[in-house]
């Protein structure tokens, strides 16, 4: 069963180019069916589901064998991926004996042949990067864990049966949102975009968070975002990283429509009392006034020392400001609580959102009009996971659009791989096709990738340009004063 992705672009008259796509995705545990004839028991999840049973067993068996085989060379680091002409397989063992495998079909070019012969297919097996798809695979697991806890937890609670149910339920939908063709360096970083803000407004937000946590003592953690960018996280970094991913690629895009709706639209939030505010729940009840409203919120799992903690996730938004409140899952959330939260947070958040917007505009005006810079960059700081990209357009639910050619993105990924190999600071300058220069800098915990488009520039000029850029752009990534 082969599924072909839609052609991305046509080069030449009849040539068709196909982007990388997901061939299969499965999860197994070898210890569940160690004896012959019981192999099927090992398989906990298999996509696509309509694959014939024996083929499933065969594929799982192959992966098992590869991993076993490579273990003999290095017991602690078994194979992470397998390159073949047509596809690439990625292996990941997130928990003892639980393996997740993702098979990606290599991008290819279909060249038509004369005389009615079937077209020749040319696989571009070197075009995709292990780092990118390895990261995508790990993200799949992190996302599952965020909403379900570990595999081990499901096993404890309800055995294999519960685990397979949970996997089915989660991955059935999640895999549809994987857009392998647009995965790139940003997936490797899995960073967080921070909203640039002046100190005073930041402190106001602090004050808001502290007040809410004080008066609604059920709230254990709070995260604050503006324009899909993070400003404050009460969660630990790793938990925030994956929650941020969920919020910005899944929850927010799904709810962006009402924001765009007109004032009189029924989607607009209701007027509470005499005070108009724009606060509304993105998770939980859509309309508080609805007598049928359900007060159920998604539950998430975060790390707590050696174990995990189960929390209700309340996401509440007013205009472009979103606050996530996390409450211990052992507490049952009631209508009263939600009303209290709404009346407390709604007006304050509305005010804060317009404050931030105003302050942001002032700062932007001071720092000069929005002129399109003649360079594009990606910045990432390993220490705080801060990322910033002028290459990527605004993310939507479906795709993250880049404004540069995939070849250039590939170069960025390659430089990143080089950086990962050594611990020292270094700098790599690449002259790409056409008039592009790609510069990668790694210093301390930070990585910066710049794409310059300058005709007839030489190495010295490019180097100077990047130096100038660093001095002007990156001394204050977070601070807009």
């Amino acid at each position: 069963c082969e599924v072909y992705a839609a052609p991305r672009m046509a080069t030449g008259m009849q040539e068709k180019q196909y982007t990388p796509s997901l061939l299969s995705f499965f999860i197994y545990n070898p210890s569940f069916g160690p004896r012959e004839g019981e192999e099927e028991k090992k398989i906990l999840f298999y996509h696509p589901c309509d694959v014939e049973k024996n083929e499933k067993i065969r594929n799982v068996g192959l992966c098992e064998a590869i991993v076993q085989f490579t273990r003999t060379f290095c017991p602690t680091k078994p194979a992470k991926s397998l390159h073949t002409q047509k596809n690439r397989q990625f292996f990941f063992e997130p928990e003892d004996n639980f393996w997740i495998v993702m098979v990606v079909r290599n991008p290819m070019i279909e060249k038509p042949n004369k005389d009615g012969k079937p077209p020749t297919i040319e696989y571009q097996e070197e075009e995709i990067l292990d780092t990118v798809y390895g990261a995508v695979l790990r993200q799949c697991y992190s996302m599952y864990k965020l909403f379900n806890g570990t595999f081990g937890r499901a096993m404890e609670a309800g055995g294999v049966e519960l685990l397979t149910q949970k996997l089915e339920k989660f991955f059935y939908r999640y895999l549809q949102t994987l857009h392998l063709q647009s995965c790139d360096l940003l997936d490797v970083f899995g960073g967080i975009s921070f909203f640039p803000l002046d100190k005073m407004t930041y402190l106001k937000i602090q004050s808001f968070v502290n007040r809410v946590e004080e008066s609604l003592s059920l709230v254990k953690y709070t995260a604050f975002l503006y324009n899909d960018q993070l400003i404050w996280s009460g969660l630990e970094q790793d938990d925030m990283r994956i929650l941020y991913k969920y919020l910005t690629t899944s929850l927010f895009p799904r709810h962006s429509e009402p924001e765009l709706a007109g004032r009189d639209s029924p989607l607009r939030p209701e007027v509470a009392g005499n005070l108009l505010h724009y606060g509304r729940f993105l998770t939980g009840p859509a309309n508080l006034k609805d007598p049928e409203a359900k007060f159920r919120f998604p539950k998430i799992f975060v790390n707590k020392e050696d174990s995990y903690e189960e929390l209700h996730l309340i996401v509440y938004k007013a205009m472009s400001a979103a606050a996530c409140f996390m409450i211990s899952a052992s507490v049952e959330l009631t209508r009263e609580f939600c009303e209290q939260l709404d009346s407390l947070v709604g007006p304050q958040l509305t005010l804060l959102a317009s404050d931030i917007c105003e302050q942001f505009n002032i700062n932007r005006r001071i720092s000069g009009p929005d002129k399109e810079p003649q360079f594009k960059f990606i910045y990432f700081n390993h220490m705080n996971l801060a990322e910033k990209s002028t290459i990527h357009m605004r993310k939507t639910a479906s795709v993250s659009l880049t404004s540069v050619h995939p070849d250039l993105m590939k170069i960025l990924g390659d430089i990143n791989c080089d950086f990962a190999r050594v611990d020292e600071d270094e700098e790599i300058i690449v002259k790409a096709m056409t008039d592009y220069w790609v510069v990668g800098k790694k210093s301390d915990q930070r990585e910066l990738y710049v794409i310059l488009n300058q005709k007839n520039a030489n190495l010295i000029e490019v180097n100077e340009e990047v130096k100038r850029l660093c001095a002007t752009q990156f001394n204050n990534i977070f601070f807009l004063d």
Partner: protein
Amino acid sequence: MSDEHYLELCDNPVQFENASSVNNVFFDEANKQVFAVRSGGATGVVVKGPDDKNSVAFRMDDKGEVKCIKFSIGNKILAVQRTSKAVMFCQMNLQCVVLEVSCLCFVFRSLQTKNASVLGFCWTNWNEIVFITDQGIEFYQVFPDKRSVKLLKSQSINVNWYQYCPETAVILLSTTVQGNVLQPFAFRSGTMSKMSKFEIELPVVPKPAKLSLSERDIAMATIYGQLYVMYLKHHSRTANSPSAEVVLYHLPREGACKKSHVLKLNTTGKFALNIVDNLVVVHHQSSQTSLIFDIRLREPDCAVNTHQPVLPARSIHPYRIPLSGPTVVPSQPAVPCQLYSSSWSVFQPDIIISASEGYLWYLQVKLPPTVNLLQDKGKLMDFLLRRRDCKMVILSVCSQILEGGEKGSLPVVATVFDKLNQVYKEYLEAEQTYTLAMESGPSRGSAAQKRPVRTQAVIDQSDMYTHVLSAFTERKGVSHKFIIAVLMEYIRSLNQFQITVQHYLYELVIKTLVQHNLFYMLHQFLQYHVLSDSKPLVRATPQPRLSTANDEIVEVLLSKQQVLGALRFIRSVGGHDNVSARKFLDAAQQTGDQMLFYTVFRFFQQRNQRLRGNPAFNPGEHCEEHVVHFKQLFGEQALMKPATV
């Protein structure tokens, strides 16, 4: 019940011989002197002032009953009035305690208008005096050496009665038949200027017209540096005023007098007024309580400039008079003093005299009891910030609101911080303006520049740190969430008023975060520069230059002997491979804690092992002395040996 008396009589009253059939007592508001005149002066006049310098005693001939007696400013000339037609001046040498003054006397009776009777006189200077007669006002200069006087200025006007405010040298005359048109005059070194007259609105206009405004119901005083005429408006059955009120008329140096404030007394009866610490105090005799009003305190639910009492009515703190006699025995019990006695006389601004008991008291406001009487902390702060001795009370209120930790106290904390920093900022700005003016040279506008006075209401960061925040962060049983929230709230407030935050506040935040392993929070604060603008953080340490905020934090922690905290921090940011082991070992050794030293030493040995495959320190790390120290403490065998391959 805790002490709720927020008014008290001073501890050191002026004592004088009580009034009797042979002893007349006079009070001069200008010099605040009490005159006890025995037998018309023949057996002695004892003058007691606020301090001993102003106290004198002398004798003078008994030439009839004394109606009024006052020294000029500086006790230079004594004026004595015995009849309604004449005043006698005496000059005396005050070096001696008892003087015979009759020899220096001369009598002055050359008044402008014949048949006018003198209502009284006021000294406005050491040798300038104003006579108020029923027909006008006359301003004279007195030359005691020549035994003569010179008329400086006079004005004819029918006068019912007068009031004098020595502080501002303003005399207020009651004119017209009803007495409610008041004419003020201001005096200043030889000049008399007529101010614009104004009319007091009477509750009822009597028919036929008769004197309806009593001098007892009018008082003059300065409040917040401005002169006010206070009118005690009694309730009247006919007019629509169910209870009495005090109406304040603002009397500016220039321009017209305006009705400015109304103080609601919400009761009726006999009242008396004082001004203490810019508060209007209204004593109510029948209930034996007093009310206080602050005209700067805005009342949100009242019409403009109508004020309700700041606090519920309370009586003055009970006062005990020690039994006095020729021999004072220390153990003698004190007798309670009858407060609000009908024999009390009240003078402006803050004087209460009991002539029958022979005491003059200054009335004082006690701030600590107000704290529990005023629930609204924002209003309480507004009130306290305008008082003279407020600092310790304000700081105790701050501690108190942090102590409670009740739900919803953060907004209150924020309000209080904002109010404190508002005052703090105003002072800093005034100070800066002054400094700039001084730097630019004294040539221009030098007369106008005065160094701003730092009042007790200026509560700076070091006050907050020393008296409130430092203890608060140390206290057991307070959640770290609340501690951090309070510290951030204070930093927010300082930023809001653009006040540079002192490094020790940042250190307090960092310390609290590190103690609770909240490194990610710390990172976020650094990221948004909330904690990083603190150059003194760097300067506080011996190192000449530090590169990043992380290094600064390590330095702070090490200087606070939080060696493990520093290690944990640097490990959390992944910098432990590159830090100088020597710095940490030095700090650990300094603490004198052997186990700590052992732990830190081991940590770095393990690091060395991991990085270089050998636990030994490189010569470049300069840790030789620490190795020696380690061997001394724990022996050679405790050292980690290189792993044998």
